[in-house]
């Protein structure tokens, strides 16, 4: 609403300023009062002033529609590119016997209906159930069109299709507003989509980069948490926990540390909330501290790869996993600490940058210090590396 008001104020100011044009013309046109060119230009100025007064908004709408049209064409091209990359990767890795295009088209249009929120009690578990069903169905659908792919390739393909699906959805939404605005000639419908175009394009660029990373199994910026946990796990015996999570056990100056992460190297985020609950129950709630490491969106001007330390469950997504971790932490009075690595949305889903990869070493040092400062010998610490583990083993 504020934006609309300021827009109206600006238009009003322009209108006031434009009233000075006739004065300016009579005072300063350099061609001489009797010149024919002067008369023509003056007439044109008056005419354009009247046209702008009467049809200013319509002209603005036309210009905005032109801009949205250009972006829509670019989005369509990117959507097609993403789909082509997905098909190519599916055929190369999955070696399907039939053409997977119809199934892929169906998957690109898949949707999820969130649970009804009128009675919020138990909402998290309803959403968790729906997400589990969706994950299972999606994985089964990928397996059907990529029968030759192994488990980690299936995970990568799943992420690749999700990226392609996101680009497809964004294209359809922008097209919807464009066509609706064109049909109704409504200034405000077109204005709201035109206003957020730069942000939309930034996100689509990021998704395109993500598609490339998933198709080749390269680590992405979001995987920094998983990378840090993997550094603590290297060379140790691992065990599988609930929902695609692996954990190990190590000692740091007399403290028992349990690092956990999603099972790699396929693209996977797992369910850290369920795994954390399992570990806490196994230890009968005797956990001195939980440390969570994740990538977090930086603000413009922040340096990529910088660290920040805080408290609370550092985990994104729909919120179900954060809820589970917070529930367990409150139940057993476990302090939860968070270390985040700053990065932009593009860096989070594009192949991992060197600054982010280098930050892993700094994070391990910080974790060691945190553990030594906040716990005593003999106590147990859970270290959760959150994020997509594509291209990161353990």
């Amino acid at each position, binding site marked *: 609403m504020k934006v609309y008001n300021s827009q109206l104020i600006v238009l009003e100011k322009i209108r006031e300023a434009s009233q000075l044009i006739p004065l300016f013309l009579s005072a300063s046109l350099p061609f001489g009062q009797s010149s024919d060119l002067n008369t023509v230009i003056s007439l044109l100025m008056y005419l354009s002033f009247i046209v702008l007064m009467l049809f200013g908004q319509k002209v603005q709408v036309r210009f905005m529609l032109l801009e949205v049209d250009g972006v829509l064409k670019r989005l369509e091209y990117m959507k097609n590119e993403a789909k082509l990359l997905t098909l190519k990767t599916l055929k190369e890795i999955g070696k399907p016997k039939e053409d997977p295009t119809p199934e892929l088209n169906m998957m690109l249009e898949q949707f999820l209906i969130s649970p009804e929120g009128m009675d919020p009690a138990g909402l998290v578990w309803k959403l968790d159930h729906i997400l589990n069903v969706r994950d299972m169905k999606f994985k089964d659908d990928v397996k059907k069109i990529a029968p030759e792919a192994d488990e980690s390739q299936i995970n990568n393909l799943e992420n690749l299709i999700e990226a392609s699906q996101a680009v497809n959805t964004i294209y359809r939404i922008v097209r919807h507003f464009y066509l609706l605005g064109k049909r109704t000639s409504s200034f405000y419908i077109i204005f709201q989509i035109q206003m957020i175009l730069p942000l939309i394009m930034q996100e689509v660029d990021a998704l395109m980069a993500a598609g490339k990373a998933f198709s080749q199994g390269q680590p992405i910026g979001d995987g920094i948490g998983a990378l840090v946990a993997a550094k603590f796990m290297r060379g140790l015996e691992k065990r599988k926990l609930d929902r695609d999570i692996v954990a190990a056990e190590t000692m740091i100056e007399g403290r028992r540390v349990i690092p956990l992460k999603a099972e790699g190297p396929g693209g996977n985020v797992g369910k850290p909330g369920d795994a954390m609950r399992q570990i806490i129950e196994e230890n009968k709630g005797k956990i001195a501290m939980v440390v969570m490491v994740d990538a977090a969106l930086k603000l413009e001007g922040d340096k990529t790869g910088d660290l920040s330390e805080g408290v609370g469950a550092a985990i994104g997504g729909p919120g179900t996993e954060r809820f589970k971790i917070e529930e367990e932490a409150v139940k057993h009075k476990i302090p939860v600490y968070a270390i985040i690595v700053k990065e932009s949305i593009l860096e989070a889903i594009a192949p991992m940058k060197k600054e982010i*990869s280098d930050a892993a070493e700094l994070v391990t040092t910080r974790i060691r210090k945190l553990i030594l400062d906040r716990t005593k010998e003999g106590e147990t610490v859970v270290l959760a590396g959150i994020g997509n583990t594509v291209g990161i083993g353990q």
Partner: protein
Amino acid sequence: MQARVASRAYLYLLIAFSIVVLGYSIWMLYGGLLSMKEGNMENFYFTALVSVIGIMLALSSLTQIRRRVSILPRIGAKVLTVALCGKCDFKLIRNFSLGDYVFKEAGKCQQCSESMYISQIYQEEPKKKQD
């Protein structure tokens, strides 16, 4: 692939057109300045107005193209794999190849014949100024 070639051709055509407009506008401005020296002020004002508009449009177009082109290398940036020897810290940096992942065994060390592992996979920084 054909669409990509067409898109590149369109980009080069746009750059060429913008440069032609810029060159013609500068030439026109020069002509206007000459006519000012000769005392033909009417011609000077007209050419100055048109050429300044031309220069502004061409520069704006070139700036937008530059912004578009600056995104391209980021999308096609090179990804590198760093293999490290656990014993002698010998580091081998090579291009990423399909199947690489962090902490995967990466063969024998060239210096001490111990086994190496992939310690990092990252995107190479494009050689340009930071945003």
